[in-house]
């Protein structure tokens, strides 16, 4: 019973990013937290195709587009996640975060942004502590 409680206490964090560099970076940072299990995907499709436990937090690359028009964008993935659970905690990762972007996404309650840069380690730590209370 103690073991089961321990397993249930672990929080699932999904990482969705088409850059292998940033998948590794984010996973490296997040797995340092106790009580967190990461599930890493290179596309939103790959994530939705898998039968996975409900995430406590989704870290989603905003720009998943490969230019072909056949890949689900970060924006569409966000809408799909929120349609499944409107209270889901989501962090959008982007190479550029500006006022226009923040304005565009302010309607999405609970959505935070972090920038793809050398400061991402500190930012992801802050976000995890805030969102997952760990």
């Amino acid at each position, binding site marked *: 019973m103690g073991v089961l409680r321990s397993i249930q206490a672990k929080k699932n964090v999904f990482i969705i990013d088409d850059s292998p*560099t940033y998948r590794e970076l984010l996973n490296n940072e997040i797995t340092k937290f106790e009580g967190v299990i990461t599930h890493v995907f290179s596309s939103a499709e790959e994530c939705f195709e898998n039968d996975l436990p409900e995430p406590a937090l989704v870290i989603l690359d905003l720009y998943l587009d490969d230019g072909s028009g056949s890949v689900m964008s970060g924006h569409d993935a966000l809408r799909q996640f929120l349609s499944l659970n409107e209270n889901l905690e989501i962090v959008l990762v982007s*190479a550029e975060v500006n006022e226009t972007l923040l304005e565009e996404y302010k309607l999405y309650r609970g959505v935070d942004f972090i920038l793809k840069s050398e400061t991402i380690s500190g930012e992801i730590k802050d976000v995890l502590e805030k969102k997952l209370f760990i």
Partner: protein
Amino acid sequence: MLKNKKILLVESNSVNRLLISSVLSESGAYVQIIASEEQLEEFNLGEEIDIAIIDLHFEGANGLSILKKMVVRKGGDFPVFGMTNSIEEIKVMQPNIDKLCTLLEKPFSIENFKQLINKNSLKVGLTHESLEEELFSLVKIEDMSRGNESFVQRMIGIFVDDIPKSMDKILLAMENKDYSIIKAGIHRIKPSLKMMCINSIESDVEKLEYNCEQMVSLEDVPFLVSKINNVLIRVVESMKK
């Protein structure tokens, strides 16, 4: 060893010039002397010479700029010696100078000079496009690693694996004039290039992304893709070493 070698000596001080050229001539070398800015302007850098010795404090002109032109013209393997009154001082003023040339502190003996030629101690680690910058730096990755060497190695491994594949897609898209795919591809790798401090192509990457997104100056796209690709090939090769 110096017998029949053509040595270019760029030195504005007459006493130094006499001393150095005499010593080199006694060893059997042919010495071509540049003593003034005028002579420097007349001299053709393409001319055949085996070794160049340049006074980094050359009067009236920047000895360092002459050195750089020589390296660019002759290539990274060409033996260039930079003469200075103090190696310590010049390294403070120009931290990367020993990557461009072998430093010689005046006065130097002919034996010392021969030993340096023997050692082939010329170190050139900079690209011709940007002599002031290194190809890449791991400083950001190392900072993030907090001492975890295996993390650094993993990041290098991912970069070395991913970038050539990404560039192949971009090159194919360029052939097909598929600008949305070029744009998406370059946008995707841009943060990784910044992470590895590949600064020499930063503006080219921004320009390529912008041009493909806005569909402007598309005639520049092949040049930009080619330039970025050439630098990244060298970066990956360097990382593999």
